[in-house]
């Protein structure tokens, strides 16, 4: 048997290696065989996940036998990423504890990020589900994406995605969680916009990424707040650098045992911010707008990412932070409210959609709302119910999406339900597997969806009865949510079978694009459908019987009977045994009734002609129009957010183009301008050249000569010397020698004394 540490590293490493291999060898070498690398890697990963789960179970049993109430956690540090030593002082951090006890004010905390993997029960559940669904989707995609130009690119992205998702559930540090949170967002963007040359697909990818970004912003703020409150971002306990003290992790054993969590406003803020991140990733109101558009991606992508794995990351994260939420019950109310509201909203919208994939997308949003509703109730049974619904939902929703993909493949890319019908004889396998998926989604006993949805409804009903937390109106609140959840259950069943009957029943219509595709899908696509159908049918009963899932999940530290709050609630619930049983039977019969009612009404209206539904649509015309228009969230966001940002971007564009570029161009245009001016002096006219020469000479002369001129004072002696005596006129004389010849002569001249003119 392999060691658990080895399995923990192998599970994400195999898809990563496959993705790298496909990236390097895919375009030229593997081409149409790129899927083999990934399928092999995912199969090995899945086997490793199962072995990991079994080993975790073994370790849990060991711990229970040793008397430790909590479950086992195995951590493995791969390497040390970064440390900022003495980044925070213990005086500023309220909840920093070491070994369960508060730190002294003088102690300092390091900001240490390790790449640490963590395996416990929750992780094991997620890993098995993720790798199994990924494997089936990869096999399906090898048939669906056959002949596509970017075949190798698809499998490379899927490998990257599985790596990111597995690392997300394995990471033991909030920062690492955030990194892989973003990574799955990136892979989702890449895969939604896989056919990037189609503008709608590119826009949908952008929208998904940007809306996720809004949620991630809240998540980041929550992480910051955790750092300032708890002094560490690790889930696990870390040893200080000098090895003396143990700094308790946020979800470490000591902290959970002591219950040393922040309460009050800070805790509520942390939990709400983390929940904002979960809303973005799991498409809850108001950040749900990206999921229906994400259907532009290939159908295997929709099945893998937007049904089973990525959108469940939010649920996983809230479940992981259960101790934090336990300390802030007000946050739980918000979670439940938003979950319930989204479930109802999405259910109403799904009733009128005509695109089969969009119906399933809104159905996903609605079911995620159910999961958050369960997590918002907060009792251990409710949390277990939420996670259970996550697992079963993964199976039947993936099945439904893959079935829709099969239909789309046969219909030549047409997925509008108004254009095809009556396909049950054309595609029998798809028909029967789709039926199983629909029954599971509708919550029909004894399929898996029934057990999980029933558990959620039961937990909500009980919380409605007994109340939860400190709010006095909690009981009424949860009862209202229960009513909403029941209505949603009815709507779920109705729209699911509406889609089913419109697609597979009625008169057989095949659109023109189908061509020669209109036949049952190949084996590579139908075998995963069948496997998923088996699991969608059976996994619910198998895991629910004897509370196997609940017990396994309760072995996770933080979730389960160990946490204080949950312990109180569990005792509370067990104490009312008889009430519990009657409530249980009431809820069970109610959910079966709602499911059957939905199926019956759908059959009545949608098998055969559709006249009567039009009449009803006219009666409830405003609600119909609102539902058909998806409650106008997209136009509203466009107007409120996208519009102003677009205007700001245009302003910046104009500033950049005219101000910044204009300034640069202005500077750049100075030499040509100077040249244009200076060029005028070279006009070929001789006289211009002469003039230029003379001007230059004058300037030169002025520069050289004028400074040298002796200074002239204010001279009144310009005209004539003021003093006549200073000027003398020498007549000159001829001097003769004694012979009478001229000996010398002095010529007449003017002599001026002083200043010579």
């Amino acid at each position, binding site marked *: 048997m392999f060691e658990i540490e080895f399995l923990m590293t192998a599970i994400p490493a195999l898809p990563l290696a496959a993705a790298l291999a496909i990236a390097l060898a895919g375009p030229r070498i593997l081409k149409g065989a790129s899927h083999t690398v990934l399928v092999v890697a995912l199969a090995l990963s899945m086997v490793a996940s199962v072995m990991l789960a079994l080993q975790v179970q073994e370790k849990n049993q060991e711990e229970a036998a040793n008397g430790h109430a909590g479950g086992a956690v195995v951590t493995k540090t791969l390497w040390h990423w970064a440390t900022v030593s003495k980044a925070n002082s213990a005086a500023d951090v309220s909840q920093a504890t070491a070994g369960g006890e508060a730190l002294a004010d003088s102690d300092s905390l390091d900001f240490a990020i390790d790449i640490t993997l963590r395996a416990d029960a929750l992780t094991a559940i997620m890993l098995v589900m993720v790798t199994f669904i990924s494997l089936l989707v990869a096999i399906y995609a090898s048939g669906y994406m056959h002949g596509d130009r970017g075949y190798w690119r698809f499998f490379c992205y899927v490998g990257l995605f599985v790596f990111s998702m597995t690392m997300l559930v394995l990471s033991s540090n909030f920062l690492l969680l955030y990194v892989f949170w973003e990574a799955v967002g990136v892979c989702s963007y890449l895969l939604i916009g896989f056919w990037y040359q189609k503008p709608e697909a590119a826009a949908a990818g952008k929208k998904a990424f940007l809306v996720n970004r809004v949620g991630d912003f809240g998540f980041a703020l929550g992480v910051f707040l955790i750092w300032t409150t708890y002094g560490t971002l690790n889930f696990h306990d870390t040893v200080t650098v000098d090895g003396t003290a143990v700094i308790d992790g946020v979800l470490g054993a000591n902290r959970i045992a002591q219950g040393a969590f922040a309460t009050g406003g800070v805790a509520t803020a942390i939990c709400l911010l983390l929940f904002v991140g979960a809303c973005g990733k799991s498409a809850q109101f108001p950040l749900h707008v990206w999921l229906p558009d994400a259907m532009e991606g290939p159908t295997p992508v929709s099945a893998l990412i937007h049904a089973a794995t990525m959108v469940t990351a939010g649920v996983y994260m809230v479940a992981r932070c259960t101790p934090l939420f336990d300390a802030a019950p007000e946050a739980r109310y918000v979670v439940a409210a938003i979950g319930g509201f989204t479930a109802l909203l999405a259910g109403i919208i799904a009733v009128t959609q005509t695109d089969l994939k969009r119906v399933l997308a809104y159905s996903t949003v609605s079911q995620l709302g159910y999961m958050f509703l369960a997590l918002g109730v907060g009792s251990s049974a409710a949390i277990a119910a939420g996670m259970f619904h996550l697992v079963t939902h993964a199976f039947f929703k993936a099945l439904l999406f893959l079935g829709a993909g099969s239909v789309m493949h046969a219909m030549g890319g047409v997925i509008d339900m108004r254009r095809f019908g009556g396909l049950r004889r054309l595609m029998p396998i798809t028909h029967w597997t789709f039926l199983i998926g629909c029954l599971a989604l509708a919550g029909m006993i004894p399929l898996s969806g029934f057990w999980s949805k029933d558990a959620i409804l039961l937990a909500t009903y009980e919380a409605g009865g007994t109340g939860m937390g400190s709010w006095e109106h909690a009981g009424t609140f949860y009862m209202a949510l229960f009513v909403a959840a029941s209505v949603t259950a009815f709507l779920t069943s109705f729209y699911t079978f509406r889609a089913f009957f419109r697609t597979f029943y009625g008169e057989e219509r095949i659109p023109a694009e189908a061509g020669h595709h209109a036949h049952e899908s190949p084996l590579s696509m139908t075998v995963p459908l069948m496997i998923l159908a088996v699991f969608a049918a059976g996994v619910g009963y198998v895991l629910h019987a004897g509370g196997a899932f609940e017990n396994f999940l309760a072995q996770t530290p933080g979730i389960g009977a160990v946490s204080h709050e949950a312990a109180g609630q569990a005792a509370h619930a067990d104490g009312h045994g008889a009430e519990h049983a009657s409530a249980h039977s009431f809820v069970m019969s109610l959910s079966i009734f709602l499911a059957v009612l939905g199926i019956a009404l759908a059959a009545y209206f949608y098998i055969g002609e559709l006249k009567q539904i039009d009449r009803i649509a006219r009666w409830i015309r405003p609600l119909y129009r609102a539902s058909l228009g998806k409650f106008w969230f997209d136009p509203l966001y466009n107007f409120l957010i996208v519009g102003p940002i677009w205007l700001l971007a245009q302003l910046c564009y104009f500033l950049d183009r005219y101000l910044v570029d204009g300034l640069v161009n202005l500077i750049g245009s100075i030499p040509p301008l100077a040249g244009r001016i200076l*060029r*005028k002096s*070279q*006009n*070929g*006219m*001789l*006289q211009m050249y*002469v*003039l230029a020469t*003379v001007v230059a000479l004058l300037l030169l002369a002025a520069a050289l000569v004028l400074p040298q001129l002796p200074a002239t004072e204010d001279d009144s002696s310009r005209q004539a010397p003021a003093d006549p005596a200073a000027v003398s006129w020498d007549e000159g004389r001829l001097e003769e020698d004694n012979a009478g010849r001229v000996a010398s002569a002095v010529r007449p*001249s*003017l002599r001026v004394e002083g200043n*010579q*003119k």
Partner: protein
Amino acid sequence: MNEIALLQNYLIVGGLLFAIGLVGFVTRRNMIVMFIALEMMMQGVAVSLVAWSRFHDNFGGQMLVIMIIAVAACEAAVALSLIVMMVRRSSNLDIAFWQTLREEGQEPTLDVEVPEPDDEHEDWPELTPAGVEPELKPEQIGYRSRV
């Protein structure tokens, strides 16, 4: 004579002649008038040289003036033959005709507007006829070529 004052005055006269000659050379467009201005500049220089020669009581200045006169004569001969050749090409004495030696892409200096000749001396002097009046061709009546 007040030698210093004489020198100063002669230098000033020479300078003025030079400056006026420069103005004429740059401004006028008739090639002959440009040449006249050139000669006038040389006259200004000659005046200065003669003044310095007297001031220093030295024949050097006057020698240079003799050379200047000789060189001016040679230069006039060669220049005028060149002007004659240019006139044959362009059939006028305008120096603005010869302006192709310019920057690439530069527009030529063209006459935008030409002022009208003022009608001066339209009235011919009335002379007493002496002898037989010549037979004037029709196109000659009312028109006299001016130089």
